[in-house]
């Protein structure tokens, strides 16, 4: 083993090095001209025949530069020093392919994300970039011409979550003629939108626009709807996922049930509905969450059912006209084969009890925004009458507090996006239905997007009073005359520079959106990542907001971050378009990063046999050698690293490539030049 480049055998390859300025993104911190000149002279013996710098390598002119050199100079390898390969590896590989060079003979080194954007010392950044280029050059010498692996794409799709984003995605794909499995954990699809009364800024009724779409999903010939079901296991990879779903026992035979509702009528057990009615109303122990539920079949809540508790009752069974009740029904496990998966699992609302100084849960007439949605809903527990917790008193003054649990470093730093508009909507509806004085307490008013600010103007003109300031406390402790029996909102009016105590009858807390409590587990289940606060991470925050780093898994709606209904619908449709694109391709190319056994070198020690979580490794007892199934191998390389005989070859990341890259990166440390950094 030799360390000094001087004593290495002559490199036969003809390598082109291309250093990108990325405008000033790289050139501002790295002396890109020097990096290119250095590569041309110092790495000449390593096969570099040309090294260029260019303003934007990814531009069509930059790509043409590479293509021209490949053709005219006969380059056999290309190294591009620019941004992260996650961004532009495909761009430069395609450029090489256009010029007739196998795309896998191109290597990208990141001198933007890993150098210019994180360092400030220009000299050190330039030296680090040179080292990175040297590493890339040494690595690319050992690259091989590869052919991408192609896998067929199963045209069926799984959509997880039946809110508006999931519904939109499902309908787009199903309408295009492909099969969709929709899995929803609640008894009905519809999500949070089904709980709302009006939608901002147009004030059209949520149910009126949502239920036709729900019915479409329920009756679509291309949709298999599985509510009251949860995904338990996901195996496989893009094009060929195998998904295990638990269909929880409904205790209702869906093939016999007509959805007539007699069971719900006759069930003697009333239960507080914490989910759909946000704790303000009741449901029965056998129930559909709301009259327009899709599917129309009820589910039995076995934790509250009198029969499951005491062994007698069976009122539902007695009265069911089609004998559809089955107390012995068990959970059913089904396996679905799908090619792509869309996750639209939605959000949870912030628990207002955590802000103890606002008194939610302690002071009766402090409501959350979700409770307010139910209060204003004509199909809600009060038939749309806005009344206090006693069920009859109409408030004379209402205070709406924005940013509860959002934009607050004690709870969530993020802006929940919808709360300002939602609070304005409540202000309008309280005005319209009760004539009460309405105060809105805001930190900043955020009303972007179409017609939103116009709605804000309208609500101001209607006479809603706006106080800029974060509410300190909501209390029932009276201090001044006129405060008796009221809730007092203590707030600093930052525009007037005054402390105010404002007595009201009702307080509405506009609570923020936060990731599902189990979003981390869901992410793990599907092999994607969550941000530190729990939202699913998209592949690129601007250019690829619906894909994830895991091929074949897409995200839509609030699971990716807080957003309103139009944005959720757009994202659902966008995810569907991406899936349809994949289905149309029929097969897709995968990185040919796979492990294979060199049988002559395999000693049959079986060390690798237990390392593979994908069961891709099998041992042939007859020949005493191990074999790796390329279709099952995912390319992690763990077995390659483990083989004591070096008998497992890791395409794309083989030992020679990595060892050469290490040498290249450290060239400046062992070479004839001093070591400044």
């Amino acid at each position, binding site marked *: 083993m030799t*360390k000094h480049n001087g004593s290495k055998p002559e490199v036969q390859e003809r390598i082109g090095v291309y250093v990108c300025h990325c405008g000033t993104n790289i050139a501002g911190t790295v002396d890109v001209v020097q990096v290119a000149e250095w590569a041309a002279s110092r790495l000449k013996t390593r096969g570099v025949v040309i090294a260029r710098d260019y303003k934007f390598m990814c531009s069509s002119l930059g790509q043409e530069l590479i293509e021209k050199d490949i053709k005219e100079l006969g380059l056999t390898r290309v190294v591009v020093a620019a941004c992260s390969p996650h961004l532009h590896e495909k761009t430069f590989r395609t450029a090489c392919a256009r010029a007739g060079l196998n795309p896998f003979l191109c290597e990208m080194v990141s001198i933007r994300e890993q150098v210019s954007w994180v360092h400030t010392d220009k000299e050190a950044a330039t030296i680090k970039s040179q080292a990175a280029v040297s590493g890339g050059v040494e690595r690319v010498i050992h690259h091989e011409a590869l052919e991408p692996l192609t896998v067929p794409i199963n045209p069926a799709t799984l959509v997880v979550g039946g809110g508006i984003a999931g519904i939109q995605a499902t309908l787009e794909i199903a309408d295009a003629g492909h099969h969709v499995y929709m899995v929803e954990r609640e008894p009905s699809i519809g999500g949070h939108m089904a709980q709302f009364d009006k939608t901002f800024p147009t004030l059209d009724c949520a149910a009126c626009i949502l239920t036709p779409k729900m019915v479409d999903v329920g009756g679509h010939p291309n949709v298999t709807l599985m509510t009251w079901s949860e995904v338990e296991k996901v195996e496989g990879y893009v094009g060929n996922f195998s998904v295990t779903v638990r269909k929880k026992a409904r205790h209702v035979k869906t093939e016999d049930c007509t959805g007539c509702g007699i069971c719900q009528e006759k069930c003697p057990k009333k239960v507080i509905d914490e989910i759909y009615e946000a704790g303000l109303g009741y449901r029965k122990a056998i129930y559909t969450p709301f009259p327009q539920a899709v599917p129309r079949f009820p589910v039995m809540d076995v934790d509250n059912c009198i029969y499951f508790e005491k062994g007698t009752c069976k009122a539902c069974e007695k009265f069911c006209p089609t004998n559809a009740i089955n107390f012995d029904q068990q959970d059913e496990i089904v396996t679905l084969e799908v090619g792509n998966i869309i996750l639209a699992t939605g959000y949870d609302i912030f628990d207002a009890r955590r802000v103890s100084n606002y008194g939610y849960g302690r002071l009766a007439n402090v409501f959350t925004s979700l409770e307010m949605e139910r209060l204003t809903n004509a199909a809600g527990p009060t038939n749309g009458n806005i009344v206090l917790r006693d069920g009859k008193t109409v408030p004379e003054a209402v205070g709406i507090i924005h940013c509860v649990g959002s934009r607050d470093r004690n709870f969530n730093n993020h802006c929940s996006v919808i709360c300002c508009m939602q609070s304005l909507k409540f202000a309008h509806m309280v005005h319209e239905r009760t004539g009460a004085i309405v105060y809105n307490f805001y930190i900043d008013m955020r009303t972007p997007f179409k017609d939103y600010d116009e709605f804000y103007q309208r609500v101001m003109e209607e006479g809603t009073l706006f106080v800029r300031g974060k509410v300190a406390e909501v209390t029932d402790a009276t201090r001044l005359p006129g405060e008796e029996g009221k809730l007092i909102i203590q707030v600093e009016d930052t525009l007037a520079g005054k402390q105010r105590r404002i007595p009201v009858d009702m307080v509405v807390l506009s609570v923020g959106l936060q990731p599902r409590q189990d979003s981390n587990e869901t992410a793990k289940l599907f092999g994607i990542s969550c941000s530190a606060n729990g939202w699913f991470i998209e592949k690129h925050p601007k250019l690829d907001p619906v894909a994830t780093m895991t091929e074949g898994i897409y995200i839509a709606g609030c699971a990716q971050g807080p957003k309103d209904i139009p944005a959720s619908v757009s994202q659902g449709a966008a995810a569907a378009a991406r899936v349809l694109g994949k289905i149309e391709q029929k097969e897709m190319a995968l990185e040919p990063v796979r492990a294979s056994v060199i049988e002559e070198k395999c000693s049959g020690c079986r060390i690798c046999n237990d390392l593979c979580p994908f069961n891709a490794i099998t041992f042939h007892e007859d020949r005493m050698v191990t074999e790796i199934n390329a279709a099952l191998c995912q390319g*992690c390389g763990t077995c390659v690293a483990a083989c004591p005989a070096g008998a497992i070859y890791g395409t794309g990341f083989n030992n020679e490539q990595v060892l050469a890259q290490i040498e290249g*990166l450290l060239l400046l440390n062992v070479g004839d030049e001093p070591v400044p950094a």
Partner: protein
Amino acid sequence: MNNNEIFEPTIIGFTCNWCSYRAADLAGTARIKYPPNIRLIRLMCSGRLDPTFVFKALASGADGVMITGCHPGECHYLEQNYKALRRFHLIRRTLKGFGVEPGRVKLVWASAAEGAKFASETAVFIEEIRALGPLHWGKSNGYTPFGGKPPEFEPAPESPEEVPA
């Protein structure tokens, strides 16, 4: 090396394609600064880390090696980062046997969202290595063991035919 000069170590960092490389990318996108002493290599998974890579890096002039991967339980390949963890302990034990400080190798878990953590852990590790001083393993400019001459090794046999019977 002049004693008044601050020692600038060179560190090789191994990242996995799915979590820690993305964390490094995120540190860049968010413009979080850290010292330039680390040079990164991308592997598909921390499980791909052959202990040879670490020894090769240290023997080729690196003063420290940072191994990074997805958090336990979050591996893109389900459980392969646990294998990296096992090898990490093996590597440290072996280094100790060589008389090299085991602290020259560090294992850091960083998810794709933890750009800030990646940057801060890198900065901390650079200071740890700075405190340990240069390794001088295989450097031609400075102290080298074996009398200043890098030891020559027999090249590994390329094919089984070359293996003596």
